């Protein structure tokens, strides 16, 4: 018997590439096309550069949603988990591996966009820093969808609602509204999407610690649910 989880990594990657990978490639290709066709505005081209980074942020978040949507819930909705986990396979490790493959795919799709921006505007944006920030974004948003996916089929939708909620709350607080206790609690509880963007200077050490800790908790939460939850709801599903 060969028991290493990596024994099924090969076909997991192939399934990913021929599944969500196609949509991710289309999206990344579209983003690259957009960056290549942008006109530099003004002597420094800053206006477009900012727009490019905003686009990179949203593209990477969308790629993350595509890579992780239905990660666990897809199998459970179809009943595939019954056959899968009768084999000597740990569900937490199985889906962790699939989640990591999703993360690598997001990096493979997003880095060329960042590279294209850097080439287009002749700026140094690539490097360990960008990869680390991509990793942080995937840890928080990808971790959130992973956790939601262990609970609900509408994982990606709930994640979008949370992103929108957090963005609206952030905007209201910036404008001087939503300063009450409830808003403060919500701002602390909601996933720190505002700290994980790829544009601008990197987060402060405290923010980085908060976002990393938050993401790690989401990931551990997902793994804990998979370790302890029943793999079926009823006798047959």
């Amino acid at each position, binding site marked *: 018997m060969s028991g290493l989880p990596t024994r099924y990594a090969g076909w997991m990657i192939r399934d990913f590439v021929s599944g969500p990978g196609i949509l991710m490639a289309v999206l990344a290709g579209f983003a690259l096309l957009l960056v290549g066709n942008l006109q530099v505005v003004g002597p420094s081209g800053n206006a477009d550069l900012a727009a490019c980074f905003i686009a990179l942020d949203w593209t990477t978040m969308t790629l993350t949603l595509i890579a992780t949507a239905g990660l666990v819930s897809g199998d459970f909705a179809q009943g595939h988990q019954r056959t899968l986990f009768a084999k000597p396979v740990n569900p937490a490790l199985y889906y962790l591996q699939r989640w990591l493959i999703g993360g690598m795919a997001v990096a493979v799709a997003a880095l060329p966009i960042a590279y294209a921006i850097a080439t287009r505007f002749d700026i140094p944006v690539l490097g360990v820093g960008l990869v680390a920030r991509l990793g942080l974004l995937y840890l928080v948003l990808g971790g959130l969808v992973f956790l939601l996916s262990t609970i609900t089929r509408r994982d990606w939708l709930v994640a979008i609602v949370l992103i929108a909620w957090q963005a609206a709350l952030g905007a209201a607080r910036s404008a001087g509204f939503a300063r009450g206790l409830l808003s403060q609690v919500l701002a602390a509880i909601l996933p720190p999407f505002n700290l994980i963007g790829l544009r601008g200077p990197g987060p402060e050490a405290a923010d980085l610690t908060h976002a990393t800790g938050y993401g790690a908790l989401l990931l551990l939460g997902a793994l804990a649910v998979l370790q302890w939850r029943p793999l079926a709801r*009823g006798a047959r599903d």
Partner: protein
Amino acid sequence: MIELQGLSKTYRSLFGTRVVPALDDLTLTLVRGEVVGVAGPNGAGKSTLISLLLGYLHPTRGQVQVDRLAPRRWIERHGAGYQAELVAIPARWSVETALHRYAVLAGVPGANVRERVERLLTDFGLADQRRKRVRELSKGNLQRLGLAQALAGDSDLLVLDEPTHGLDPLWTQRFRDVVRDLRRPSRLILIASHNLDELERLADRVLILHQGRLQKVVTAGAAPSDVGASRELAYRLALTAPHPAVGRVFPGAELVEGRGAEWVIRGDLATLNRGLAELVAAGALVAAFTPEQSRLESEFRAAVGGES
């Protein structure tokens, strides 16, 4: 191998407004080397029992252990061969791909996977379907694929839920041969089925469940005398030609409509034997003498009160 101690499972809706007891206080030991059948009407708790044995569900009360381990722990170490009642395999996989992947998941060493897949394709008559997508398979072929994937590994625990559902008579017969070949001293085979004839042919013991409770454990293949010679039995008697002695020897004999020389006769073993001897002595030629219901069927009806 498997110990069930006061095992109970109750399904509850999210807010507890709907409570459905599925299994109640089941205590039982299943040992290696035996084939155990699970029979019961719809909703008797068969599939719930299987889900608990595989650790897919947590019991509400009591416990289940496989070799003194929680089921999930045991399965993550050794794996089980499991065929679900509703075979659910990713629809876009091809038959060959599916078997290859389940063999890999089952922990078959890389060098042996191809050979194992080829053997399964041949044994289950799927070789000419190997390139077909799972979604394109007929019900019978899907059922065979479900059975083949369950045997992709070499587990000591096989759990087959309605394994012949959707199979044609030829493959139903083939399935029996497969199960006989799968028997070995270290292996426990559990088969849940509505098909009592199949269980009677294959199982050493049959658990009869009804409304979540274990009603009876029937040792299959035992002689009727094991359940008491005084018990009334029903047999079908066929003669080569109608004979006037039948009515005298078996006063309650019911002529089977449309069959000139066939009757259903009832009585305990001694009465039936005496009557048969008398009939033969009177010159009747017996063509067939078969149980009207199989023994398991009789036990089943007695246990579930005629509901099926």
